[in-house]
């Protein structure tokens, strides 16, 4: 008998194996098999992006956000990175018996505010209450649909020489949650980066037609996302560690806890792969938006090392930057 372990839900290589061997095996179809952040479906002559995500973050309130806003922005971002304009959202809440009603009010208020910020409507929902211990305070599922306005984003577009851009300091979300959960204080309070990305992404896609692909580095962090991008491609990716943006508080926390910022979840960042010639315009568009102010080019697509991500370390050495393995930080989103 084998039991599911926490590492099966980590967002890393083990979760990918579970998804392939359990879900994809049985549900297999051409849309699902693309494993995009959102499914791109055609209804009539309209292209629709459709996605779903469940939120089990612990604690439910953390610096810079809460489970409610996180659940909204997470789904909105999964639509946005697929070149879609997020429109309609569903909310399913599983609530543990005994939850303070005022806590529920705060979470739902936060969701309503987040929906208004992201300019989406919550149009359907579901509520379940389970007995004490059957869940932890509240779990939220959101699904969303959006209208595809830019449908040429695919890892198949990658070319050697392309630039790899990240939209700001990495790891803020994971460290804000973990420091709140473990009661660890660092020199500066690290706030979650949880935020909607649609506005910035739309600007980027308007400013350049040479964006190849984008994805938000949530569970498993930038390292895992870059591996997801590189592994099906004929190219490698090389990352310059010295220029990867990470806040002082995040770097301190990582030193203390033995973590690597490159594997930490972000909830309001995006990785963009684009043609080298478009780098300047794209960075300008990203930096003009608050969520993208800290955008930087952190690497390049290379002909060498196809399918692999190589890190040039701060100390000048080179090594493989692999996919997250095992369960680094459970229940981060």
């Amino acid at each position, binding site marked *: 008998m*084998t*039991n*599911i*372990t*926490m*590492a099966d839900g980590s967002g890393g*290589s*083990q979760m990918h*194996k579970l998804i392939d061997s359990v879900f994809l095996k049985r549900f297999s179809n051409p849309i699902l098999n693309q494993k995009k952040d959102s499914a791109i479906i055609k209804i009539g002559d309209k292209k629709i992006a459709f996605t779903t995500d469940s939120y089990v973050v612990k604690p439910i309130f953390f610096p810079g956000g809460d489970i409610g806003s996180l659940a909204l922005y997470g789904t909105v971002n999964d639509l946005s990175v697929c070149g879609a304009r997020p429109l309609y959202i569903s909310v399913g809440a599983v609530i543990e018996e005994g939850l303070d009603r005022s806590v529920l009010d705060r979470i739902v208020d936060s969701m309503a505010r987040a929906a208004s910020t992201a300019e989406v409507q919550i149009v359907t929902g579901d509520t379940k209450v389970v007995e004490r211990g059957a869940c932890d305070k509240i779990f939220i599922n959101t699904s969303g649909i959006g209208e595809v306005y830019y449908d040429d984003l695919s890892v198949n577009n990658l070319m050697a020489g392309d630039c790899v851009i990240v939209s700001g300091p990495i790891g803020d979300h994971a460290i804000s949650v973990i420091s709140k959960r*473990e009661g660890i204080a660092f020199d500066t309070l690290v706030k979650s980066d949880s935020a909607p990305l649609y506005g910035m992404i739309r600007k980027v896609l308007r400013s350049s037609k040479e964006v190849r692909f984008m994805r938000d580095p949530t569970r498993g962090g930038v390292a895992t996302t870059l591996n997801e991008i590189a592994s099906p491609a004929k190219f490698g990716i090389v990352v310059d560690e*010295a220029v990867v943006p990470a806040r*002082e508080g995040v*770097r*301190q926390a990582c*030193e203390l806890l*033995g973590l*690597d910022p490159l594997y930490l979840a972000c909830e309001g960042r995006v990785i963009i792969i684009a043609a080298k010639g478009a780098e300047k315009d794209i960075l300008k568009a990203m930096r003009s938006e608050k969520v993208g102010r800290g955008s930087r080019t952190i690497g390049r697509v290379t002909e060498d090392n196809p399918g692999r991500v*190589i*890190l*040039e*370390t*701060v*100390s*000048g*050495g*080179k*090594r*493989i930057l*692999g996919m997250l*393995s*095992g369960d680094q930080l459970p229940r981060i989103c």
Partner: protein
Amino acid sequence: MKYIDEFRSLTLTKKLAEQIRRSVDERFEYRYMEVCGTHTMAIFKFGLRSLLPANIKLLSGPGCPVCVTPNGYLDRAIAIAKLPNVIIATFGDMMRVPGSRSSLEKERASGREIKIVYSTDDAIDIAGRNPDKQVVFLGVGFETTVPTVAASILEAKREGIANYSVLSAHKTMPAALESIASSGDNLIDGFLLPGHVSAIIGTKPYGFISKKYGIGAVVAGFEPIDILQSILMLLRQSSPRVEVQYRRVIDSKGNPLARKIVNRVFEESPAEWRGIGRIARSGLRIRREFSDFDAALRFKVKLAPALENKACICGMVLRGMKRPDECKLFGNRCTPERPVGSCMVSGEGTCAAYYKYGNI
């Protein structure tokens, strides 16, 4: 980060790498063992091998506590976890280490109460909050971690915390290194010694390395500059001796207070090293006076004989005789997700370092 970034500086690593290049004689091979798992990880994480001349070979040593913990220990921990009203408190890196038939991670998934703690204080807190349960702390580590474990046992005794105990598999470094130095089957030209062990024991216990075996040694820090400077110091030794590079943390005397606490609670004993075997005077067991807090005595469990996968070459890897990628299981049967040996799963394991960071 102050006091960290300085020790990773590209300008300095380049300079040191250049000095190292100028100090080697191309006709010879230099075989240096980095004893500590934290060194192994730093070397891989910062890609330091790619900065060194090809004739400097870095061999990873036995200084990863999780890697050298025998399966029988995990089997016992798991058997205790299965007893009613027991909470196992453990450092996170033990969770996925395979025992003979299961792992703590798998046991937790099937409902046993196994909690990850960051210190013995956390374990004592759990004991305080659960007076009707037994809390067993898995004491795995070298000289560096033993003092806090000893202090927790003293605290439990002083405060009458009767539901706390320790399952000890603590080990000590010098006798293990002597067994490697004396075996002669790995041709080691120098040791990078674990800095934090010396923060406790000082440098005196290592004197035999140069005196008896004529091998040079440098007690090294854990940042790229520390490691490169230590390699340069080894290269520049005109005759073998034990030197300290990690001077910002240790002096030759170590920490006498920590040693006193350890000696109060623990006594020297033989110890079983996974893949290496039994080494005299290389372990620490809980003294009879504190036997009430010894989980191995408190909980009587029946254990089936421990099983080891015969194809696993962890033992040779831990003694610097083989590289992980020379193992038949490496990367196929044995991966961090499904480890056969603990060297593949530990955050400080040599096999994990090879698998994760590659050998490029």
